[in-house]
């Protein structure tokens, strides 16, 4: 396991308390799992992603990520419609471990409310929560 100070948290992203990150891209937003979450899960061996076109509300389950030992559900950090999913993840789920903010992204969504992004945690805020043992 990484120590807290080893966790990568890009400044330009926003974070949810459930360990998802959101990266605004114009009027879309890319969503994935944080470095902290992938490290805690360990080797990710299976990922189940939603269908393109699905509308998922904030806080609802949008994906399931499985490691050798456990099954974890991923919660949507902001309501919106899925416009793309990261296909290569199905065959190569370890991308989630290797590149959580790059090739390991999970879904691209069109947020219902573009302003909702700004209500998510900043890197600093998320780190504070991690240090607080959440």
């Amino acid at each position, binding site marked *: *396991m990484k120590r807290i100070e080893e966790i990568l948290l890009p400044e330009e992203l926003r974070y949810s308390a459930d360990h998802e990150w959101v990266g605004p891209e114009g009027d879309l937003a890319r969503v994935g799992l944080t470095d902290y979450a992938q490290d805690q899960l*360990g*080797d990710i*061996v*299976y990922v*189940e992603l939603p269908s393109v076109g699905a509308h998922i509300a904030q806080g609802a389950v949008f994906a*399931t990520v*499985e*490691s*050798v*030992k456990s*099954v974890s559900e991923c919660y949507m950090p902001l309501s919106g419609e899925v416009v793309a999913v990261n296909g290569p993840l*199905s065959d190569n789920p370890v991308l989630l471990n290797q590149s959580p903010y790059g090739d390991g992204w999970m879904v691209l969504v069109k947020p219902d409310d573009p302003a909702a992004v700004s209500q998510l945690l900043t890197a600093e805020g998320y780190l504070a929560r991690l240090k607080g043992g959440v």
Partner: protein
Amino acid sequence: MAELRKTVLHEKHVSLGAAMVDFGGWHMPLQYRTGIVEEHLATRKGAGIFDVSHMGRFIVRGSGALAFLQHVLSNNAAALDTGFAQYTMIPNGRGGALDDAYLYRFTPDEYLLVVNAANRDADWRYLHSRLSRFPEAQMADISEEMAMISLQGPRSRSILQEAITGGVLPEPLKNALGAVTIGERKILVSRTGYTGEPLGFECFLAAADAPWLWDLFLEKGAIPVGLGARDTLRMEAGLPLFGHELGKDPAGQEIPIFACPLARFAVSFSPLKGAFVGREALTTQFAAFKKIKDEDYTSIEDLPRIIMPFAIRGKGIARAGFRVFRGKKEAGFVTSGTMVPCWKTTDEGLSTRFTGEREMRAIGMMLVDSRLKKDDPLEIEIRGNRVDAVVVPYHLRSDAPPHAMPIIRRDPEDFQKPVSNAWQEKARDLLEKALQNTRWRQTECINLIPSEQTTSPIVRRLSMLDPAFRYAEHRSLRSYYDAEVFYYQGTDFIEGVEELLKEEMARYLGCREVEARVISGQMANAVVFSALVDYLNREDRKTEPRRIRSVLNNHMIRGGHLSAQPMGALYNFIRIDPRTEKPAVVNFPVLPENPYKIDMEATCRIINEHRPELIIFGKSMVLYREPVREIRDFLREQKIEAVILYDMAHVLGLAGPCFQEPFAEGADLVTASTHKTFFGTQRGIVAGNWRKEEKQYALWESVENRTFPGSVSNHHLGTLLGLLMAAYEMNCFRDDYQQAVIRNAKAFARALRDTGLQVAGDPAISFTETHQVIVKVEYAKAVEAARRLEENNIICNYQAAPDEEGFTAAGALRLGVQEMTRFGMGPEDFRSLSQYIHDAVVGGRSVREEVTAFRKRFLAMRYCFAEDMFTDLMEKLHRLI
């Protein structure tokens, strides 16, 4: 929450950055920084170390120890010889498991029982409660003072081998135990583990020494493995885990022990166990189990569900507790399941190798309807979706040491081989290939397989004359004063041939009787074993015949041939020992410093203890004479009646003063194949030396009877005719040939040693007394070395040395000089050959062309009658065929 317990290695785990979890009240590493997948793969490719000190270790001792263990455990502790371990269950009265465990017997008067960590306290309380009925047994909990580190994987052997400073590794047998020292520290070692690895050791040592040993193993390249990979490794190996495949099922019902595939090995109904806990329930389960395997489901309610491995064919991972469906019907539960990594393999058979790539597969075990069979399609419910799965027989095999091989289910291919009707083309093709093969082996290769021989041109010609197409069954009839009566006409010639052959072989071996109709050495042994059973039961034909009570032979790993083993020709004829519940075979002990030589002193002790009815000498990896005379003298002195059989398959052609004379030394029977060091066609013989008036002559009559009609009807008259000529050749050229073979073998061994290769045996006698030379190449590398030699036209075979786990782990080559001696090679020629072997095996140099040219110097066969001695007759023969 109570404080979690820590093993003596706790600090090591934490400092290695392990993710620590609560495991049954213990603070244990789930995984290290490498992660579960890497830890799993590293164990399969290299070596993993596991801290298993959290498991419970109980000592049971005292004169009542055995009775106590027989009562509380499911396996037969009386079958456990000192130096071995066994898997066992702690059953409850209902035939369920309180726990599964391993019982070790490092010393004669003490047993060590290792139980699961999570059940440690409960097991102790339970066992203690039962102990009061066995006042002569004592139990001690040594879990704290003794630690346990498991070292598993293909490199485990070399890691341990390099580390030890005293003692030797346990013999290469499953569950074998030993004691070694590393530095000044004493460590008990067992060839056990729970990963499915064919090579793996558990090390037991003083708790205070455990951190030091842990670091030593790490230093030598072992990878620390946490509970996560420990679970995937055991799951891939199909091994049960208490709480999953044993104990309660996901619905809270007790899992019957016989639902578990390993139960057949862990439960014994030996009378020696008495009324042990759970006996009645387990007997019922076992009866149902046997019926189910026979597709008789009338008792299925006694064992409605069985644990089976499955593979997911669709997408997803099945986890413990998920429901399994067969069609619409619910069939059971997943008991363990996850995604498990494995190394990909390529090529086939012995050429199978790992590509270095990896893959993941979703697999597991399930408790399902006992009627399911392998390849049955299933569905498993994964978060509301039904996903396709299939019953598989296993996920992993451990029978190709040093590697555990992943077995990935492939759907049967619908591939049909094209069928051709071009018979003439096929005939031409076959002719060409046969020609090419014979030209290659006879004129381009150096043939060094010790069990082969080329016959002389005359023997070859004779073998395909008219008798090759005929029958000549015969047996003696008492009504005609034991005259042989033939069932067919036109057999006078071959009758005469058989008589002459028997005379010639009897003269060669110095014995009274020969049975020449057996058509192989293996059949010769089968005939003798069958005859002995016949003889032992000769006065009672109305009851079930008893089998041979006890046999002393050479162990396979020390060169014994499979035909003299229960797995070979002895199979039907050896009793199952009620104590060990295994075939009643004991093996010749060997000298610790020379495993190719029988230890006489220890053998005498074993004979006294086991009173074998049959003693079988003879090996297929043979460097020394067998101590026939010594054993005969000992039997005489001790007034022990046993039949001494010498299987001379390899050394028949060496019989005589140069090597040994079994009948003069006291053997009762000799069996052999006739085509290794002997000059014959591919056949067998049995020879005996009892006089007609001796009691045991009835055994000889049984030999004849079990040959015909017992084993042959047609006894292959073509090669019988060829063998007679070969016997003439042998009796004519014997002395020169035998001396040349032994001289060449010794010279070959010395020359190989001089090239730097490691030659087995005693250098003081030039390593060998036979036609064989054993060269050690490198552990598990002999298959490759033998293949490389074949590419260079040198034909020999790879051989597992006595300390190696099996033929796939072979590190030695077995070479025989007999055939090339016959083609005229002398000591200097074998010296040249040894250089070619060295250059090909060690230097990786291609010597194929040099070897081919070298062979051209040795094409004319010696020690046989030349065709030009009989030009007139040979011409007629050629014209005839």
